[in-house]
């Protein structure tokens, strides 16, 4: 039995579309009118092997806005009739001009194949388009054709047949920047309240059309129950400016891709194009990204070291003054161990947090992170994640709370859920103080490397978990990747500093409020019942630690570490604050690092196991609350917590057994 597929031919006027249509269909064609309009409709048939192909020649258009009848006919056919594949025929001699339509076709979410027609003429002019690069950058298979001689047409049909049978299919689409993307996300939420609309039109495409002031789509929603919500959202937006900004984004992307896809099409490569040529390279892009991230961490610790030392110096001096000058003794203990020991120790890590955020802001403002997202997308898709997940994962390096909230831009429920579930494995800033302390104490000459490995381990666990979830509990196909390619620019100091402050102050707020409260609780538990030595085994905290410690004994954790990990559930920074209190840093005027180093129950292996455990186990209380809020489900929230705990335990156990071979045993 023959397979049957339907293909639509789309393209600008005068790109050789009709010539290709005639060559493909020969005498097997039918000419009529499109329903309701006097635009000629041509359809015909071709056979390739066992596949019968119905080919429909769409009217030539420069875009898919609703400004002309031809445009309305072409896009309505694609949306309403849903052909198996759309072949976008482009004039290879005028490649760049044709790409605007490509960007709009990509937004319709139909499988696309690009025919690089008139390739012979283009090559005579010295223009060589690289079809494999077209596939790489646009995620659209491309075939060189010469319609007038029938060259490449068999390959074109075979590629179209293959594309029609490819499932799941990865797609790229245009990203319009945070502000417009937020409007798109809000409109999608509103549109999804009307299932009739979303069954008929792709929600993202509709949201984009609404932002571009498409009258036909505006008419369509007039009778929809979503109308009021959509109107409210649109009222907040300057549509003229937004439409212009969206067109700019499309041209920006085309301008960035042109030198990569067709280097001979451009007069000369700018510095931005030259960097993209390497930074988005299939083989070098990801290693370069990883190396730059490592460089970012090295810089962070280099810059922060003197500031951290200064803060610690000041805290120690303050602790000494408190002990010497304040009476009664319990009050001195409270201030020294509770406040200075807890909050003060954490404040010592503020320089690391702020400098890391500053470097990330510089990378973001320079335009490099957009390229990083592009090169990572290939990897993301291979593990079953949408490219959009990259941004929440990246934000997760700062704080998991806004990162989990940032998954709102992911439309697909399963994609979003997977991204939420793996986000806690991204090493947030709160974990950094723990890494800095333990790596600095137990791996003084390779602290940066150890921390880098922890970040990489978090990414690896996230990737493996995503793959596992996609294969088991959340099967499906990831949503298209939204590409953004702003030109490289030198970031302005003010913008980067504002970004740094926005993210860093979030950490400060947590340090100031949450940690203060928890430090007081830890101090109370470590001081009671009355008469026990502070933080001793007889104190409530000691009793609690001893009750739970047997469970984590195989990981080498003593009762103090156990207590710190329990309090770390409130906020990961608290691990340090709690240890500061439990080891009596303030009272004894001994740096926490020295106390840990002097503790005979701790070794480099234990420290590494602890770092791995801290990286993976239960996200902080705030993250758990946000997971509940964003998933709307206790089931997924509890799953997230338990999954993290189990993986953390297993990974730390593996470290305890494997690490001695590499770092010389315990």
């Amino acid at each position, binding site marked *: 039995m023959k397979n049957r597929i339907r293909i639509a031919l789309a393209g600008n006027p005068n790109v050789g579309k009709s010539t290709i249509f005639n060559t493909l269909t020969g005498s097997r064609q039918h000419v009529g009118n499109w329903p309701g309009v006097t635009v000629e409709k041509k359809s015909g048939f071709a056979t390739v092997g066992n596949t019968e192909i119905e080919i429909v020649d769409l009217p030539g258009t420069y875009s898919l806005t609703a400004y002309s009848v031809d445009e309305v006919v072409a896009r309505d056919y694609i949306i309403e009739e849903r052909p198996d594949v759309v072949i976008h025929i482009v004039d290879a001699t005028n490649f760049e001009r044709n790409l605007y339509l490509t960007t709009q076709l990509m937004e319709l979410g139909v499988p696309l194949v690009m025919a690089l027609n008139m390739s012979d003429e283009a090559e005579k002019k010295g223009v060589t388009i690289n079809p494999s690069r077209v596939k790489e950058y646009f995620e659209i298979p491309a075939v060189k054709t010469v319609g007038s001689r029938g060259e490449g047409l068999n390959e074109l049909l075979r590629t179209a047949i293959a594309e029609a049978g490819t499932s799941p299919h990865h797609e790229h689409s245009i990203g319009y920047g945070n502000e417009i993307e937020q409007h798109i996300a809000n409109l999608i939420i509103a549109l999804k309240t009307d299932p009739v609309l979303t069954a008929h039109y792709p929600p993202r495409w509709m949201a984009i059309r609404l932002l571009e002031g498409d009258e036909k789509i505006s008419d369509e929603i007039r009778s929809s129950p979503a109308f009021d919500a959509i109107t409210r959202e649109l009222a907040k937006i300057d549509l003229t400016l937004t439409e212009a900004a969206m067109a700019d984004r499309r041209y920006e992307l085309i301008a960035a891709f042109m030198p990569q896809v067709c*280097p001979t099409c451009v007069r000369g490569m700018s510095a931005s194009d030259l960097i993209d040529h*390497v930074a988005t390279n299939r083989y070098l892009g990801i290693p370069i990204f990883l190396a730059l991230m490592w460089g970012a961490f090295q810089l962070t610790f280099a*810059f922060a070291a003197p500031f951290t030392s200064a803060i610690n110096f000041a805290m120690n001096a303050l602790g000494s003054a408190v002990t010497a000058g304040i009476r009664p003794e319990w009050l001195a203990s409270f201030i020294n161990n509770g406040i200075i020991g807890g909050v003060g120790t954490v404040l010592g890590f503020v320089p690391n947090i702020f400098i890391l955020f500053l470097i990330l802001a510089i990378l973001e403002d320079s335009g490099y992170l957009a390229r990083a997202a592009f090169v990572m997308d290939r990897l993301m898709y291979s593990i079953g994640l949408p490219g959009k997940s990259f941004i929440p994962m990246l934000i997760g390096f700062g704080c998991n709370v806004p990162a989990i909230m940032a998954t709102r831009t992911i439309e697909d429920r399963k994609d979003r859920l997977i991204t939420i579930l793996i986000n806690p494995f991204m090493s947030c800033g709160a974990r950094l103080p723990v890494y800095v302390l333990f790596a600095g104490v137990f791996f003084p000459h390779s602290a940066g490397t150890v921390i880098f490995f922890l970040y990489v381990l978090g990414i690896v666990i996230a990737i493996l978990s995503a793959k596992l979830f996609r294969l088991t509990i959340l099967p499906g196909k990831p949503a298209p990747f939204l590409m953004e390619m702003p030109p490289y620019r030198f970031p302005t100091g003010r913008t980067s500093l504002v970004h740094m402050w926005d993210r860093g102050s979030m950490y400060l707020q947590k340090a100031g409020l949450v940690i203060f409260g928890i430090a007081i609780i830890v101090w109370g538990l470590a001081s009671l019942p009355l008469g026990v030595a502070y933080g001793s085994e007889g104190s409530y905290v000691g009793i609690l630690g001893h009750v739970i410690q047997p469970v984590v004994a195989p990981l080498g954790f003593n009762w103090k570490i156990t207590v710190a990990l329990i309090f770390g559930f409130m906020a990961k920074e608290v691990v340090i604050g709690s240890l500061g209190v439990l080891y009596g840093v303030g009272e004894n005027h001994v740096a926490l690092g020295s106390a840990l180093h002097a503790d005979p129950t701790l070794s480099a292996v234990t420290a590494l196991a602890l770092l791995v455990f801290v990286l993976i186990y239960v996200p902080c209380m705030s993250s758990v609350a946000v997971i509940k809020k964003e998933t709307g489900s206790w089931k997924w929230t509890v799953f997230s917590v338990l999954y993290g705990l189990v993986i953390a335990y297993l990974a730390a156990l593996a470290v305890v057994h494997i690490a001695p071979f590499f770092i010389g045993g315990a």
Partner: protein
Amino acid sequence: MSTRKLVFSLGMGIVYPILGIVQILGGIVPGLAVSLNVLFIPADIIQGFVLCLIGAVFLYGAAEIHQNRPGAEAFLYVGMLLSLIFCVITLIDLGAQGANAVLFGGDGGSSWPLTQVIIPIIYMAVPSVIGSYAWGRKFFSDLTEA
């Protein structure tokens, strides 16, 4: 095809990975680190990986330049850029360690031994500086003006 650029890319594309592999081996093979220190090559796995990566960019560029491919020089420029970036990062790292040691007596020692300063990731940036001056002036000025 520019023979000078080809030779430069090829040279950097060979020397960088050799030094990188030696640094990686120093980090893996016990006892080798001490011998390497005498040769001013630290035993540092990640830094070795970075050296290999920079070398790979140059080597890729050499192949592209040899085949006269459009945009081939991008690899040469970005190779030099990466070489300079990582040299600066390492210098800042060493400088901060030194400052921390002097001001607060932190880790990093009270002086800078030559074995810490004359290391491949730093001295290999010297040819990149020369290369940037010879061929990359427009590239780097475009970048700074952007």
